[in-house]
């Protein structure tokens, strides 16, 4: 997945951007590329659903499932609005519902923002979108992925915890606990079972 020139350590996010404005598509594409993201830009909600394989045309058998880490969509679009696209994605009973969706709008309408956040939008960006906005988003998404990976490996570590204290198993009648005799103590048997 690494592309020449991109840092090998950082995961490359694939962002699907949706906007009916040609100018805005050009700008968002550049903002994302300069932030080292893989970008797919489409002009409508319908096209976005087609791309994701959610339009009912292709059966989501997963053989050709496109991996998208973030969807950024304009709010005001003819046909399907960004809000409607958001709802459709959040109604999916699969991995698609987990994809964070960000709404972009040139209008700072509180009720609109609330509605989108209530429907599950990750964030609401005021247009024109800035480089700082994209960077912040990217950091947030990448952190989420790292946390996911950490959680999985953390579970493994917890099941082989060897930090039980020695003193608890020494009876007052016997000789004081001697680490050199640990092979014969009940404690070592406990350790061995783990």
């Amino acid at each position, binding site marked *: 997945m690494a592309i020449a020139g991109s840092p090998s350590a950082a995961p490359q996010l694939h962002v699907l951007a949706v906007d009916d*404005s040609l*100018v*805005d598509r050009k*700008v968002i594409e*550049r903002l994302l590329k300069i932030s080292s993201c893989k970008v797919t830009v489409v002009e409508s909600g319908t096209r976005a659903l087609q791309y994701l394989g959610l339009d009912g045309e292709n059966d989501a058998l997963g053989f050709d499932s496109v991996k998208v880490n973030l969807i950024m969509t304009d709010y005001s679009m*003819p046909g399907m609005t960004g809000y409607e696209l958001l709802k459709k994605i959040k109604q999916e009973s699969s991995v698609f519902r987990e994809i964070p969706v960000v709404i972009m709008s040139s209008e700072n309408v509180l009720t609109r923002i609330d509605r989108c956040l209530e429907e599950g939008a990750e964030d609401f960006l005021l247009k*024109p979108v*800035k*480089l700082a906005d994209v960077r912040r988003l990217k950091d947030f998404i990448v952190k989420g992925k790292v946390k996911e990976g950490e959680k999985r490996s953390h579970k493994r570590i917890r099941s082989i915890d060897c930090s039980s204290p020695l003193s608890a198993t020494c009876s007052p009648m016997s000789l004081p606990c001697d680490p050199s005799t640990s092979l014969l103590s009940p404690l070592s048997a406990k350790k061995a079972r783990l």
Partner: protein
Amino acid sequence: MDGIVELQRQLIDYTASLFHEGFLDEQFNQLQQLEDENNPGFVVEVVTLFFEDADRLLNELTKALGQPSVDFKSLDAHVHQLKGSSSSIGAHRIHRVCISFRNSCEEQNVEGCLKNLQQVKHEYSLVKDRLETLFRMEQQILNAGGSVRR
């Protein structure tokens, strides 16, 4: 060498005047920051797309206002698009007129809309002329072997 330095100085002064006169705003700076050695023509590309888009929209607006019965919803939709794209490239004065234009649409005020359309066309021709001059100056510097980005 002196020639290039002089051209660069003129470019800086000219660009500053465009900001000072309100033709351009911070968003234009943002666009310039997105340009690099790998994408040297980015700003020209986006602005050119804007010009094409604006030409189309102004045509639509003129047609719509020429109808016997004006469809204000459709009119507003077009103005909204122009407002958006002008904002995206930092064309501040056009953006401002579009805001007034949308108000006129909301009030279903034909006279107001006609006036706003005239204003938009005027501002558009001004900023188009300014930006084309800016790009010409940049090209001159590049042709002479100089660079245009700080």
